[in-house]
């Protein structure tokens, strides 16, 4: 089955909408709570990334019997050096975003920690696509 969400950049109050919905669905499917937790954490981080950095984004989620595939595509500045962005503590978040308690440079590393497969593609100045796969 599929779930789709759209995210507006800059609207921090909306971050967490997709992860909350996905959590409810996975609970109804009887997925292991620890597995749900990882997915929800990764998805929430990804949502925050779009809100904090991009103009807008789309989330497409496909749930199969043994896995969940999440694709987050945004229109935004892109990531010039993905390897650098994957390092803990590295952040390009603005002062304003940091003041709101985000942008500690833990986003992408935290996503990596909580997903089985992670693929990030980015075109600088245009878009970033994050694909995450979690097996139940």
């Amino acid at each position: 089955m599929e779930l789709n969400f759209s995210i507006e950049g800059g609207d921090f109050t909306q971050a967490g909408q997709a992860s909350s919905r996905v959590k409810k669905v996975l609970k109804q499917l009887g997925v292991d709570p620890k597995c749900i937790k990882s997915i929800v954490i990764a998805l929430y981080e990804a949502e925050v990334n779009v809100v904090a950095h991009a103009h807008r984004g789309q989330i497409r989620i496909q749930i199969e019997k043994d896995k969940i595939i999440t694709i987050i595509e945004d229109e935004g500045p892109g990531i010039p050096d993905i390897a650098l962005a994957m390092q803990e503590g590295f952040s390009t978040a603005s002062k304003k975003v940091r003041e709101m308690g985000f942008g500690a440079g833990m986003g992408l590393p935290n996503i990596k920690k909580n997903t089985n497969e992670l693929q990030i593609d980015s075109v600088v100045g245009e878009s970033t696509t994050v694909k995450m796969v979690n097996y139940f």
Partner: protein
Amino acid sequence: MHRLPDTYHALKVDAQKCIGCTHCMQSCPTEAIRIRNGLAVIDKKRCVDCGQCLRACPAKAIFVEQDDLDKIKSFKYRVALFPAVTIGQFPENISENQIYDALLKIGFTHLYELEQPIGFLKDSIKEYCRKDKKARPHISTFCPSVVRLIQIRYPSLLDNLIPRKAPHDLGAHLALEQLQNQGAQRDEIGIFYITPCIAKISSVKSPLGEKESIVDGVINMNVLYNKVRKNIRTTDIPDTSDRRETLTRDGILWSLTRGEARHFGERSMAIDGIHNVIRFLERLENEEVPDIDFLELRACDQSCAGGNLTAGNRFLTVERLEHRAKRYESSSKFKDHPIQRLAPKLKSKLISDPIDAKPVFILDRDREKALEKMSKMQRIICFLPGIDCGACGAPNCQALAEDMVNQKAKMSDCVFLQQTWQEENKISTSKALKNMEKKWGKDRFKADCNKRGRRNEGF
């Protein structure tokens, strides 16, 4: 001491009184209620005994079973085990001595305010929190509704629960210990727990994290309140202060909001009200909260002062108890008290068994079937109006869709959908009316000024 089957739930619906409205169904935080044949039906697996439905019911049709007060007569030693909030029910001009005296007049022989010696429980929780590093924040197991909620809806947080029993176990063990030391036999002692809430009844009848309950009977606080009021004496009031010798300030405040949180961790939080608790647990599960050491979560607004079986106004109760607490010493002043002799024995009885998950929101045990049902639900939702009116007998459109895929409801249960079907001549008007009567009771839609539920104004 008795053992009861699986999960006991105290909440019952009185079919004679239930008017088949939707107030209870809409108020339930776990969507445990449906209307069938014009009556509210509670799904025992989903119910967490929070009592929101009891508060919402305009017909007082939701009630709780309790033990008959006469049951105390069959014991030689009759212990009233009551929380400090009991005292807070009464107006300030009725003194502690008068209340204690009235309880003795009713027929109890021994009186124990159950939050004593609270220092034992406090130390035991502190020791656990210091040693256990596996899951933070540590979550108090004080409120049984919250524990049941975590069991059914937040199983990933079960490791965070502190495996310690409730103050009523502490009080009961103290009473037993002291009476048995005076030569009483266990079967001569009847311990009657006076409860401010429904959840405590269920937790006594089918304990969480312990094999059997130590309590012999449960009495609702509002029932006892009336009895005590009738037996208040205004002259020759005896001094009963020796019966409160080990009661402390911390004990009196324990069941109020922040009563626990104030003692534990560098950073602690207290949240009351079941809907607030749910919103917070959602966040906690997503790790959207800062580093907190200790969480006190209570289902009722103002914690036990707002218990659903209390008689007083919850804010006045809190005020009286806070005022009362000032006259008592802090539990740390009891370090050299003779009661400390009992510490090792009582503390060992406060440890509870681990609590298991009881996930009840799974659509199907078979993942593939669950996925199928989920996709079907998504398709059904497209046809439902999204008004969440409850006229189908389910609390909202999403819940109706869920009931449908579980074969507990059908498309025609939606009154709006049925209306459009009539328009398209897919269903006859008489068939449509019959469908509605099936859900809401026969003759429900005829004009009748004496109909059940006709006057719902004013709540």
